[in-house]
């Protein structure tokens, strides 16, 4: 069977092609997931729709407090962007910790979203930012919150004729402290055993707002609503942080797999949440 390869230069043409081919087409962005799967799992898409020439999806843009990342923005672009560090710091650290420089130069935010890995790093930051995913088809145009977009490992609510065009989120207020850390088998180019991120705002000695997310400990990235609720309004104290970390470990449901065990993952959740909160408190208080 011959493979059809299409590389349109305009979004409209890409949407047109996807409308025609539907689920026979497979979208190619940076290829860091797709090519591995093609070689490894022997998947052989009938049509490859390469988005690489869609320059319009490669931009990072701003409108007031809104930040928009085109789907083809790479991890490296995010890591190197001069302003993002102040606007969404944990997104920058998450992207900085993806794979190796080569992977970061090719891998895109759209691919990271579509891939829907529970260990996705950039996506974890998007959960914290409560980003909305922009999906477009020939006939439709819609925005879906990231937490609703991803449903299971490798599963999203993207329809066969839709392209992820980008994501949008609000920049964090200047007093927000942020955090991201992951633990893997080795330092680089590794899949997380567990990862964690957070955003905290403190005023008058109390947690005002707190968002926490975990990766690799559930079928999708998860937020920790119980812990967040318990923290909101609580005074900043070591005991409160201890309790929050313990609650996080108790409420998550990690699994045993080849990369790690339940007991260790649960322990990591406790350590990472504790460490994250402590670090955010320290940075908020020094600011």
């Amino acid at each position, binding site marked *: 069977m011959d493979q059809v390869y299409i590389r349109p230069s305009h979004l409209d043409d890409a949407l047109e092609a996807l409308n025609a081919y539907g689920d026979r087409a497979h979208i190619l962005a940076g290829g860091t997931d797709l090519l*591995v799967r093609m070689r490894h799992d022997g998947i052989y898409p009938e049509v490859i729709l390469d988005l690489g020439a869609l320059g319009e999806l490669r931009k990072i843009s701003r409108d007031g407090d809104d930040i928009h990342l085109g789907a083809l923005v790479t991890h490296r672009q995010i890591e190197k962007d001069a302003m993002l560090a102040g606007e969404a710091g944990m997104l920058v650290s998450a992207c900085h910790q993806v794979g190796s420089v080569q992977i970061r130069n090719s891998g895109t935010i759209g691919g990271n979203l579509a891939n829907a890995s529970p260990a996705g790093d950039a996506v974890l930051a998007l959960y914290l930012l409560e980003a909305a995913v922009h999906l477009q088809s020939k006939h439709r145009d819609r925005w879906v919150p990231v937490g609703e977009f991803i449903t299971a490992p490798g599963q999203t609510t993207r329809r066969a004729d839709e392209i992820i065009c980008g994501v949008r989120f609000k920049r964090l207020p200047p007093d927000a402290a942020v955090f991201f850390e992951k*633990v893997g088998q*080795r330092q680089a180019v590794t899949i997380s055993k567990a990862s964690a991120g957070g955003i905290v705002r403190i005023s008058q000695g109390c947690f005002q707002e707190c968002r926490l997310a975990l990766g690799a400990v559930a079928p999708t990235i998860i937020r920790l609503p119980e812990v967040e609720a318990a923290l909101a309004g609580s005074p900043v104290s070591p005991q409160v942080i201890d309790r929050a970390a313990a609650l996080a470990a108790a409420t998550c449901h990690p699994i045993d797999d080849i990369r790690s065990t339940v007991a*260790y993952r649960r322990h990591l959740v406790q350590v990472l949440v504790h*460490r994250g909160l402590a670090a955010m408190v320290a940075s908020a208080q020094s600011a």
Partner: protein
Amino acid sequence: MLIAKVLHSPVAHARIKNIDVSKAKSLPGVAAVLTYKDLPRVVYATAGQSDPMPGPLDTFSLDNKVRFVGDRVAFVAAETEEIANQALKLINVEYEELPFIIDPRSSMSDGAVKIHDEPEYVVHDLSDPNKNVAAAIRIDIGDLDNGFSEADQIIEAEYKVPKVHQAHIEPHVSISYWDENDRLVIRTSTQVPFHVRRILAPVLGLPMKRIRVIKPRIGGGFGSKQEVLIEDVVAHLTIATKRPVRYEYTREEEFIAARSRHPMIIKLKTGVKNDGTITANEMYALSDTGAYGCHALTVTGNTGHKAMALYTGDGKYRKAPNIRFYADIVYTNTPPSGAYRGYGAPQGFWAVERHMETIAAKLGMDPIQFRLKNCLRAGEIHPFSIAWSEGREPKPEYIQTIGIEQCVHQGKSAIGWDQKYGKQEWRDSTDKPYLKRGIGMALMMHGTAIAYLDMGGASIKMNEDGSFNLLVGATDLGTGSDTVLTQMAAEVLGVPVDDFIVYSSDTDFTPFDKGAYASSTTYISGAATTHAAAKVAERIRVRAAMILNDRTDGAPVKPDEIILKDRRAHASDGRAVTYSEIGHHSLHHKDQEQIMAVASYVSPVSPPPFAAQFAEIVMDIETGQVKVEKLVMAVDAGRIVNPVTASGQIEGGMTQALGYAVCEEMTYDDKGAPVERDLVDYHIFRADEMPELETIFVETFESSHPFGVKAVAEIPLDGVAPAVANAIYNASGAMLYENPATPDRVWKALQKQKIN
């Protein structure tokens, strides 16, 4: 050329009840499909070792039984790779599944299923297929009980090491064809071309003289290619189809159907006096050879022979050490273990060097002082040399050169030991309270070739223009041995290396060499090359004297006065003859002869290289993550012939050893299926992840070799894992008994340490 593929077993242990290849055979483009029914039933061993094979014969090219997930079921040859893969899917196999063994601890239990029940099985020494024992070792040196009775303390512990993979970049690949003289040529990526020819002849039913094995340039082996692993596949298919056939392993096949490093469970029991004198040392190793006994005896023999020889004890124990090394090497239904650079020693040193650290801590002694107090010294006998020699007659070997104290001294100062070890401020000098620094070390010894067994041959022929053909059996697998051997010949003959045309490892053309293993090439093949060069040099001197004396323009010259330098033979009176003149004279002008010599070398000793390995780490005491920041290895490998290739060996070796230390491990699920099947799930270190490496050569002159060399190739695999684990202990107090030091494992060790 046809492409070969192999159908691998999906089950861990089964008899093939029925196998139907008719559909596969009728697929257009398929040239042959072979099953056990098509091949003569010849039992052999795949380990590339000298005759007689030091292990059981328990393997068939194809059998009616499969013994691990990945074992061979059928061979296919087809016009293209796609067709061959397609044909594999069309083979119908009915398996009668049998109980299987994954955990080596249950191999010898009563009632355990017999993995080798074939009547053709040939036992070797203590092997007993009825008990799933491929090999067993019982070595007693001195009087162990007496040694323990003289001890103030006895320290016991159990250690564990995983199976790991060589991960050479080039996979196994072989091509075979009938040549114009109806001889079977096998071009193969091997470390042992001569063993391939010898071992395959009966398997293929061909006289040895009808087989030619050629080793072209190859891309690494690390022991994995000290195995006759896939040559029989192409050869059987060439014989069946009369056509050239090529077979190349996929990366997945390398993981599921090649050889790897033996996993072991090692028990150590050591008696010490309160002053730190070791009075008795006992090791028991349960070694898992997987489904076949390739290298079973010799790898595990090396575990004791290297790791248990280093510490004889101090005082009277130096002359009369009390050492016991027992081992059982058992079958399981997992992919076979085999040769992997280090060959048993990394397993042994993991246990011994962790144990020494623990004992020093218990005694409250400095771990380095404690080691040096008990370790071998120059002039002493290698304790195992009189006790064991792989089943051959043991003969005494005395240690001549031992630079271990210098290695410690120079290694310590390179890593800044005295400023760091036991210094709280240094340990805490990180930017996070949960990050701690640690420093650790290990001592090791290895061997250089196998005494009285390993032979290498070389021949050198002189041409008219003064160039030389150097033919060596030695196998350069990317190590640069062709270069190093040429350097030695060039040094003796007084010419630059580019005057040599070197050709190696072709069973039709080059002299025999047992191949590239046992850290032997520079030493054994180098000595053979040096001796051949010396013989050629002798003929050159005779010829030069003849020419000069015929000239009558000076006083008569004797050959032994002549010095060979700068492509000339120089008389002491300043007259000289060029090599080109000598070449022409010998081949064309007078008393014509071919100046040529062959020499071979076998050593009565296996002089051990010694080394000190140092490691510096930073670890996260909450998550258990360990980052190795610096490795320093100081090595006494005798004289260094080529500093670039020698330090390359050390750096490459430490890179592989670091994987063993912190992240590499092959695991199997409860059905025996390999979990890691590619380099994504199996982590080897990449260049950009490596810590700073430093190599220090402490040069000694090993008088048993013409250039004073000892081995350098395997010793860097031995010490990194225990040195890193000792650094973890130094940083956190956590005791690791099992490697690699993954975050999970380190965390568990930290938990235990908190309880204690």
